[in-house]
């Protein structure tokens, strides 16, 4: 009975794995350069998340469709070049957020094409056993998970470091500009990652105790 429940819960959770349970940044430690360097403002974080989603979903779909026909060692070449072309084509999508955002992101726009989320998911879905639908679901979930983590980190860093949110000044009694430096990015990711682990474990313990009550 309990095994059935577990199987059902796992099947349901599979759709949201990339968002919460296996968040690419906070749980899996993927795409860390972006989480550390780009999260100094919400605008940059949202822009990079849009670009990642735009490049990740088609590239993972491509991997699931043609990956099995390519030699394994050669497939990253095809995926990264394809992702780079898609990223470059999608840059106009982020310009309405702010005209300077592409310049402020600098080298972090082109290196999206070699990010570890993309290469990990492409490697996972190039096997013939996996269906393209699940590849799409995972790519969308991982993109959402990435965006969620980026926005969460950027929220704190912009608020504390610049005293603003989305460029709008927020009156705060103090300002810690050091939060905007690279080292603070590493520390912020570490603290949030630990928090997510703690919450995951707490949820597991709570669920276990609810289904296995202590005998009276």
């Amino acid at each position, binding site marked *: 009975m309990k095994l059935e429940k577990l199987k059902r819960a796992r099947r349901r959770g599979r759709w949201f794995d990339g968002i919460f349970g296996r968040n690419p940044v906070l749980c899996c430690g993927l795409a860390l350069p972006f989480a550390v360097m780009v999260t100094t403002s919400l605008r940059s974080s949202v822009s990079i998340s849009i670009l990642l989603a735009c490049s990740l979903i088609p590239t993972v779909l491509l991997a699931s469709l043609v990956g099995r026909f390519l030699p394994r060692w050669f497939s990253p070449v095809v995926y990264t070049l394809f992702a780079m072309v898609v*990223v470059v084509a999608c840059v106009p999508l982020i310009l309405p957020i702010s005209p300077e955002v592409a310049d402020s992101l600098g080298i972090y*726009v082109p290196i999206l094409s070699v990010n570890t989320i993309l290469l990990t998911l492409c490697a996972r879905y190039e096997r013939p056993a996996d269906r393209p639908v699940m590849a799409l679901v995972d790519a969308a979930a991982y993109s959402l998970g990435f965006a969620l983590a980026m926005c969460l980190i950027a929220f704190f860093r912009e608020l504390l470091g610049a005293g603003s949110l989305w460029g709008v000044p927020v009156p705060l009694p103090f300002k810690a500009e050091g939060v905007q430096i690279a080292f603070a990015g590493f520390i912020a990711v570490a603290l949030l990652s630990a928090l997510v682990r703690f919450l995951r474990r707490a949820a597991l313990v709570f669920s276990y105790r609810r289904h296995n009550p202590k005998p009276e």
Partner: protein
Amino acid sequence: MNVLSEFLIIALSAAVLQNAVFTRGLGSSRDTLMMGAPRRIFAFGAALTFITVVSAALAWPLNRLLREQQLSTRLGIRYLTSISTLACVCAVFTLLYLVTRAWFPRIHYPLRRDAANAAFSCAVLGTILIAFSGGYGFVKTVGFAFGSGIGYTAALLLVREGRRRIALSDVPRAFRGLPIMLLYIGILSLAIYGLIGHQLPT
């Protein structure tokens, strides 16, 4: 002599003061930072350094040609330099893989596992693009790429040593693994920030 000193100074600066991992977070993915054996780290670092240096040497004349012909403006493609640089990295990786497989099987065998990870690491493309955006000449670009590769390998060794020592300590459960490693890298990053001569904003 001037060329050599120029090369060494920029390489040293790239390895220490502008370390790819500690100052820009490049190439800091969990899989690479969690590498265990020093032998594997050296092999990975050697592959990464080789690919970065050769790709930079190949991409520099191409980038210069693109700039002189103003192809980026004429074609209206904003990131043409990045596309050409990535194409160079892909070409170098393909050549390295095929040449070692055909003629150097003893090098190919250990390289096989990590060559793709090294070539398609953010550190390779990021380093070359930083050198291009700095407007460096050929020697400086190659020196920067070389120093970056060495600095990346040193960073991996430092992280490994830190991880080995942390494993002996009593770390809270939630911080074990990735979080404590990132805290450690953050502290090293702060140390390098101070070494450059910066002061924390007050």
